[in-house]
């Protein structure tokens, strides 16, 4: 494989970086879009480590299907920002080969919907080689893929299939539900000796948020309590995080103090954080956009029941995606996943709030 001896060149076009550089705010935070957070993460990774390169469909000349990699080709050159043919199985396989050869590839699969074409490479190669080689072959590959609804791209571009990957032993599966994680997860994932999948969310691309100016690598083993509360634990990830936080804010006006947990890591699950929260609040509402049956919430619900049943003061409840191919019309697309008001109504019902 030619990629193994790929030489680094990270001196190009630093000035572009600075130009795009963020609106600084007063208390050492910066305000940026989710898209910009992703781009900064990739840029930092490319700058820090010569072994890192990005490949995928339209990541180079087009600047990424969702414009997350705009300008990187000019900055890092065609050997580190690599456009691939429309062949997911082929380029994910190439990524696995590069990783085996000592590189640290970032493979972008445009959306999770297309990743099924590469499923065989991911499941049968990336996830198994360490085990099948008796621990001799690590696959330090990071696959990023966008996920979920929000841009009216219809069923074949809008699914939330995190649960499919969370099911696969041998993978680490991350979900970047916040700007902070979009900015930081990639950097930590690249340090991992084994394959990591990172889900990013189309729905969030244009959303602005403030993150610390020095934001960087984040922990990728723990769930995070995004908001503390005592009445109920809303456990979610990905596109559900900001919705749950907004719902919690509105619930607090009604006197309901909801805790919001961002799972962040869908495999392996951080059960301790979940259990500690539910032991405190005694109620759990699990929210995600993936189809309701056999999703991540199913797994969490089972674990809560298995481990802390006697701390429950109400049945564990789930809000998941409606079980249809994601519809095209805006109002139906919105209706196909849990929204802020759904979360509020469900919480009120669980707490019998008049």
């Amino acid at each position, binding site marked *: 494989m030619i990629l193994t001896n790929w030489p680094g060149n990270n001196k190009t076009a630093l000035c572009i970086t600075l130009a795009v550089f963020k609106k600084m705010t007063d208390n050492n935070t910066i305000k940026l879009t989710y898209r910009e957070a992703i781009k900064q993460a990739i840029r930092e990774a490319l700058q820090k480590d010569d072994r890192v390169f990005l490949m995928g469909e339209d990541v180079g000349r087009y600047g990424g299907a969702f414009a997350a990699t705009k300008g990187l080709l000019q900055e890092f050159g065609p050997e580190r920002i690599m456009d691939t043919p429309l062949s997911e199985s082929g380029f994910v396989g190439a990524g696995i080969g590069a990783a085996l050869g000592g590189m640290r590839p970032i493979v972008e699969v445009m959306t999770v919907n297309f990743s099924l074409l590469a499923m065989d490479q991911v499941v049968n190669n990336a996830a198994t080689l360490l085990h099948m080689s008796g621990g001799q072959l690590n696959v330090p590959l990071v696959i990023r893929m966008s996920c979920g609804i929000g841009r009216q791209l219809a069923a074949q571009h809008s699914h939330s299939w995190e649960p499919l990957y969370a099911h696969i032993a041998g993978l680490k599966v991350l979900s970047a539900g916040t700007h902070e994680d979009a900015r930081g997860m990639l950097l930590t994932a690249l340090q991992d000796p084994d394959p990591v999948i990172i889900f990013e969310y189309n729905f969030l691309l244009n959303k602005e948020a403030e993150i610390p100016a020095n934001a960087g690598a984040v922990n990728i083993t723990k769930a995070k309590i995004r908001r503390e509360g005592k009445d109920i634990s809303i456990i979610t990830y990905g596109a559900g995080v900001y919705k749950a936080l907004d719902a919690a804010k509105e619930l607090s006006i009604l006197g309901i103090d909801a805790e919001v947990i961002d799972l962040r890591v869908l495999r392996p699950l951080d059960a301790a954080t979940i259990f500690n929260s539910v032991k405190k609040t*005694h109620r759990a509402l699990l929210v995600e956009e993936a189809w309701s049956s056999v999703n991540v919430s199913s797994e969490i619900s089972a674990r809560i029941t298995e481990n802390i*049943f*006697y*701390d*429950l*003061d*109400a*049945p564990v409840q789930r809000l998941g995606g409606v079980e249809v191919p994601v519809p095209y019309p805006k109002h139906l697309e919105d209706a196909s996943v849990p929204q802020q008001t759904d979360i509020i109504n469900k919480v009120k*019902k*669980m707490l*019998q709030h008049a």
Partner: protein
Amino acid sequence: MLEFKMPSLGADMEAGTLCEWLVKPGDKVKRGDIIATVDTQKGLIDIEVFDEGTIGELVIKPDEKVPVGTIMALIVPDKEPTVKKEEKAPVKKAEKKEEEKPTGEIPVTVILQGIKASPLAKRMATEKGIDLTTLKGSGEGGAITKADVENAIIEKMAPKEEKKVAAAESIRMAVAAAMSKSNREIPHYYLETKVDMSKALAWLSEANKQRSVKQRLLPVVLLLKAVAKALTEVPDLNGYWENGLHKKPDINIGFVISLRAGGVMIPAIHNIDKKTIDELMVSLNDIIPRARAMKLRSSELSESTITVTSLGENNAETVYGLIYPPQVAIVGFGSITEQPWAETGMLDVRPVLTATLSADHRATDGATGSRFLMAMKDYLQKPAEL
């Protein structure tokens, strides 16, 4: 230092509220002394002590509500003379068993089934001695939640006057809990026989002629005595089922007394087999009014080894009882009525009593139960020997 604990006064009791200490530290006590009164679902109960010694410390205060098995007081034992020790040993053993059982598994089984309550609410109720059957759920679908149990705990702490009003209802609930448990857990079998009471009644009538009104006997003393005597022959029905049959050496018959306001009290009449008919009548004269006034002693509520229910005159002819857990049998007597009676090829009219036995099939089989009924029937034909 001996621990004096909140006694269990039946399978349905989970907690009691101390009303008053009748002793103070330094007081000498002996077995059988009443040292406290406790408010339970069955009214104010005089609590007896089972040890000999000096009151060391009164651990809980009046108005404190504590679960069964909680240490109420510490007693400094007297130097134990060897003779006493022997005498005491079996009593203590029997008492211990009764205490362990309700603090352990009973609250769980009584509470858990058929009630819509969250796991947390159930756990808290068990820990705090709250009867979930008395609560109304505020959760989704009417489920009882943590908040409901917490409210119930607060209510229990509230002044006692309200509780008095609810005495009848609380007895109803106690009966409900015990009988639900019985029906759920005990596989009953039922036997029935008819007893010619002409000899017994004739004997009684003669006996009463020789007695003043005050000493007059009721037919029920003969029945109780016959049950006790038959139990000496068939001891398998006198005891408890706790992971196996535990026969009891003493025959303490719990006698069902219906309360005018509804519900029943089942005080134990101790050692009936060893009492004479007249002594037994004296016991009844003492215990029945106290039961109706809900003024019983702890030993009378906790030590019965079998139950007898007797409907008395002008009532239904047959009664099939539900066993009072953890006992293994209940004997039921209907009203004595005149009935045609065939004997030695002749038909006659006799006062006839229908006697039934409901027994725990885990502990005994029909043959044992039948032997008991036949023995009892025999005794009732020889009233003078009772």
